[in-house]
């Protein structure tokens, strides 16, 4: 049967749609595809599944109730609810799905709803550990109590700054201090002066030297000169000497007693100080103890504060130096005064009184420090110092008792962060440590804060590749993330989902405060959703891209001074988006137009055919034709894939070429050797070739060369083939058709041009409106084929041929010509002997 370039199918399609334009074609169903005979040109209705705007039950998106979150993702949401409900520490959730699908917002929305009904988590504070200052103590407080404790401690210090100096300034204290001085004979200076007076009474002067003390004979208040002393009676001299020796001994004993006496005096004074301080401190602390004494750990802390305050009461009565006098009039805020830091409270998690429910926290920058918290440092005198007040909470602290959302890729790219998160989840506690500690490179003061118990549900977001990579490469991952919420890239294009799509558009309009869209605009967006999905029966859930289209359409509506966004605005937004990105496509098409890249779009040639490929440039992709040629000759059974030879062909492409050999051998060389040498090449291909979507194309070129039958150059081909000659589906079918259409359009559409695609790809067709219009006007065609035989008939205009009862193909059929050609090669091989032996082994492919 010949599958020529007949227009029947297209005419049928046109008849089915009447005189309607492509914009108001009734929504067609994929079942219609089966109405077309295999190998025929497709009907217009097969080329693009449109939406009947009149069938939509609203005028504008203002009439719709916006839908927030995800649509058509019941499986993923069910998994999410399950994971959120499992309070076990290892049932964390990995959300799989494409980027920009809006899954983050949807998950956050779903979890926020769940969290709102959960209890408020406790507050957490870090306080000074008075025994081990480098190991701050964590205290758990009821929600809302952290700030109260923080303020209570500041108030306590403020109060003591007033009461303690007053207590030590009181006459009572001063009198008792003087009594202690008196008990130990007064101050050393006073005792020395008393000794001096006693010496004076004995006629001895008590003098100070730069390094100590000395005694000298004295008369009338003056030291006796040596000559006068010598003139004194010897007995008097002896008496003076004895007095001096006695005084020297007394002085020595006195001086030696000073340290001991001073120590005892200071001990007594310390006891007095502690007694006075304790009275003031206990009075001031009473209220705080009453409020927080029942909290586990808080009583111990407050008792430690009490003890420390009593011992260090001098902190409160220290006088500033004269150089600080300008600042004395305005005392430093207690919470900022370095003297009182140790009594302050670092409320790392403090719930506000009005807060309710569990937290849902998104870690936008999940570094190690941002995740598990960190100790910051201050530079003091050239050294870095830290204390418990410099502990900063991480996202795990803030999310404790609730949910923590993290982008998995960002997490994995942050050094130490992934390991720290796993450690926290495994140990069910948050331990703040500097990552450099693990490397042993920290040389400055560090903190080892008491770990805080962790009860959090971590939700990681990532693509499937990342999920499977972690599953395979990290044994702990599967242990800790037992729930996968798998979000589809696309959803089925059902009536319900189309309606939900429209409501999603309404939500975008509301979120960005845009002009409403009329039903035609929404219909066009639904069609674009299928186009983005690459499947007429699916809708893409790439929410961000949909949002972009809606917003850009709003812009163009504003430019056109419309109050409602129309289908025309949506179309323009899509076209303009493409135009902004298609500079390279234009350049590429120019090379075809100017004959730099050789591709024929009319005429017939033996062993030459137009294949189709897709170029991806960021988010924009487009198709382009490539000339593929095949040359055959008698040979030792060898097929040369030139792309592979020069290492430009990928493995899938090479596989496709090898399949051709299997097809040829099975189809035409059952009873004779395949004495063929063939070469295949993508002409003017300077980059890599991968994929098997051109394998059927290469086979057509090979058959053409073997049969010496020309191929129509106005037809481009895409599709892979198996050894049985069945044509299989490929990707990017829309872009490929449009790519060849654009080249043909540049050169002028003749009505004989078209593209052959696998029949299995018809369901994916969502062609551009201008392509559909051209086909409606019989200027272009798309053929769907299931077998090589169907395709070769379209390409050559001759029957492919089926073996008759005699085992022979009909004369004048393409396959008969192929078989004849191979027979000639086999006979030559037999004549050549050695070559035939080689060929008898089944041939090779390089």
């Amino acid at each position, binding site marked *: 049967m010949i599958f020529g370039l007949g227009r029947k199918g297209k005419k049928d399609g046109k008849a089915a749609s009447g005189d309607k334009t492509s914009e108001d074609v009734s929504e067609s169903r994929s079942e219609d595809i089966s109405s077309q005979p295999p190998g025929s040109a497709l009907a217009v209705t097969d080329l693009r599944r449109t939406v009947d705007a009149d069938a939509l039950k609203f005028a504008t998106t203002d009439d719709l109730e916006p839908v927030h979150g995800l649509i058509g993702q019941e499986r993923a949401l069910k998994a999410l609810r399950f994971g959120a409900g499992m309070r076990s520490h290892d049932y964390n959730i990995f959300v799989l799905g494409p980027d920009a699908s809006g899954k983050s917002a949807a998950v956050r929305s779903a979890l926020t709803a769940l969290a709102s009904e959960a209890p408020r988590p406790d507050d957490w504070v870090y306080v000074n550990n008075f025994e081990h200052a480098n190991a701050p103590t964590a205290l758990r407080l009821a929600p809302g109590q952290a700030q109260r404790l923080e303020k209570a401690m500041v108030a306590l210090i403020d109060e003591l700054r007033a009461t303690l100096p007053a207590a030590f300034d009181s006459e009572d204290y001063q009198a008792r201090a003087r009594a202690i001085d008196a008990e130990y004979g007064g101050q050393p200076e006073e005792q020395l002066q008393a000794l001096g007076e006693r010496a004076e009474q004995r006629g001895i002067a008590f003098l100070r030297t730069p390094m*100590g003390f000395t005694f000298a004979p004295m008369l009338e208040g003056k030291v006796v000169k040596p000559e006068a002393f010598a003139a004194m009676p010897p007995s008097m001299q002896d008496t003076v000497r004895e007095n001096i*020796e006695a005084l020297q001994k007394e002085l020595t004993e*006195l*001086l030696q007693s000073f340290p001991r006496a001073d120590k005892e005096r200071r001990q007594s004074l310390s006891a007095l100080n502690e007694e006075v301080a304790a009275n003031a401190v206990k009075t001031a602390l009473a209220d705080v103890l009453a409020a927080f004494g029942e909290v586990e750990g808080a009583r111990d802390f407050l008792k430690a504060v009490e003890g420390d305050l009593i011992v260090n009461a001098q902190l409160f009565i220290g006088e500033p130096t004269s150089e600080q006098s300008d600042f004395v009039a305005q005392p430093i805020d207690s919470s900022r005064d370095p003297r009182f830091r140790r009594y302050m409270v670092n409320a790392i998690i403090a719930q506000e009184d009005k807060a309710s429910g569990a937290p849902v926290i998104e870690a936008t920058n999940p570094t190690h420090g941002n995740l598990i918290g960190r100790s910051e440092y201050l530079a003091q005198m050239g050294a870095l110092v830290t204390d418990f007040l410099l502990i900063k909470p991480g996202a795990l602290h803030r999310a404790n008792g609730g949910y923590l959302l993290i982008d998995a890729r960002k997490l994995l790219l942050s050094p130490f962060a992934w390991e720290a998160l796993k450690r926290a989840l495994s140990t069910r506690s948050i331990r703040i440590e500097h990552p450099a500690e693990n490397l042993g490179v920290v040389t400055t003061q560090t903190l080892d804060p008491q770990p805080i118990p962790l009860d959090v549900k971590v939700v990681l977001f990532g693509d499937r590749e990342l999920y499977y990579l972690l599953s395979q490469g990290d044994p702990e991952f599967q242990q800790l993330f037992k729930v996968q919420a798998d979000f589809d890239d696309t959803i089925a294009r059902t009536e319900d989902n189309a309606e939900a799509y429209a409501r999603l558009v309404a939500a975008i309009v509301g979120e960005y405060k845009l002009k409403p869209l009329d039903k035609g605009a929404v219909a066009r967006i639904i069609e674009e959703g299928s186009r983005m999905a690459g499947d007429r029966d699916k809708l893409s859930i790439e929410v961000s891209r949909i949002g972009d289209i809606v917003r850009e359409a709003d812009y163009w509506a504003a430019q056109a001074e419309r109050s409602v966004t129309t289908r025309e605005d949506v179309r323009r937004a899509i076209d303009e988006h493409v135009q902004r990105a298609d500079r390279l496509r234009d350049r590429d098409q120019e090379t075809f137009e100017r004959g730099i890249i050789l591709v024929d779009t009319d005429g017939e040639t033996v062993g030459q055919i137009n294949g189709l490929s897709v170029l991806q440039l960021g988010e924009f992709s487009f198709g382009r034709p490539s000339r593929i040629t095949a040359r055959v000759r008698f040979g030792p059974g060898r097929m040369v894939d030139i792309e592979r030879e020069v290492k430009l062909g990928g493995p899938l492409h090479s596989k496709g070429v090898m399949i051709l050999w299997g097809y040829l051998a099975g189809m035409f060389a059952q009873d004779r050797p395949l004495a063929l040498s063939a070469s295949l090449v993508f002409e003017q291909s300077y980059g890599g070739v991968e994929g098997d979507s051109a394998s059927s194309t290469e086979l057509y070129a090979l058959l053409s060369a073997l049969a010496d039958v020309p191929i129509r150059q106005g037809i481009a081909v895409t599709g892979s083939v198996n050894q049985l000659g069945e044509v299989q589906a490929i990707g990017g079918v829309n872009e490929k058709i449009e790519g060849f259409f654009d080249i043909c359009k540049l050169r002028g559409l003749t009505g004989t041009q078209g593209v052959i695609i696998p029949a299995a790809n018809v369901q994916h067709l969502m062609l551009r409106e201008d392509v559909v219009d051209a086909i409606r006007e019989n200027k272009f065609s798309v053929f769907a084929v299931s077998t090589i035989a169907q395709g070769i008939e379209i390409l050559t205009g001759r029957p492919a041929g089926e073996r008759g009862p005699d085992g022979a193909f009909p004369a004048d059929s393409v396959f008969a010509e192929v078989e004849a050609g191979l027979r000639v090669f086999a006979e030559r091989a037999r004549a050549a002997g050695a070559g035939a032996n080689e060929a008898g082994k089944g041939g090779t492919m390089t």
Partner: protein
Amino acid sequence: MIGHVASAEEARGRVVLRLGCGTSAVDAAFEAAVRIAKAFDSEIEGLFVEDRQLVELTAYPFAKEISLTGRGSRALSSQDLEQEFRAAFLAMRRRLEAIAKRSETRMWARSVRDDPISALARVCAEAGPWNVIVMGEAFGPRDGRVLGEILASVRDATGLCTVGPRSRRTSGPVVVAVEDPDRMVGMMRTAERLAGHGARRDNIIALLVSDNPEHLHWLEGQARLLLSQGTSVEIQIAHASYGEPASIAEAIRRTRAGFVIAQYGGLAVPAEDLRPLATALESPLFLVR
């Protein structure tokens, strides 16, 4: 006294900072010297006195020097003493230079060998009548008589500033302990000059001191009359019950003064016993005759 200098609008005078062989000079004394010098636009002369009697004492064969800790003693030799004097003077000079640089005050230092009080009298006489002596070492409970001797012997000094063992503070109000209204005007002018260099210009307290309630009442009236014009001054009253100096000393302490001006030999600074004041005084003390 310097009060005279101020009233005569003769701005210049000299502060003689006396440093001897006793215990180390205290910071508060240096700060007091700087404050007085700045208040009166004066310069400071550091006077290190080598006690002549010590030098003569080296001639005694039994003269011994007992160390500050009492753990050792040695024969007192003139050679050792010369070295110690020299070292102590150099240390004092370095300290003065550092303070002069920091406070931007003109200072110099010299060493004289004489009796301690004679040395002061001689040096003060060299530079004219308007000197203020600042004692570098803290006074002891029994030093009242020595302070009196200085005030009596050194006629070319208008005042004597000293510090107690607990004097640490130089910021705060200037407290004038008034016992005699005749001296009040001069003392107040000195206070104004000192307060002018302090934190707050009008931060002066007149502490009226008496052991007689009727006299105190009369004193208050006189004070209010005298202080009715000019600088605002806070008036406080200290009643020395039964003539007890301790209550006056406590009243002074409670003012948290940065400088105290008082008359030597009265209730506030009795010549016989400085123990209460030594315990209570937390600032420098400016004594007038």
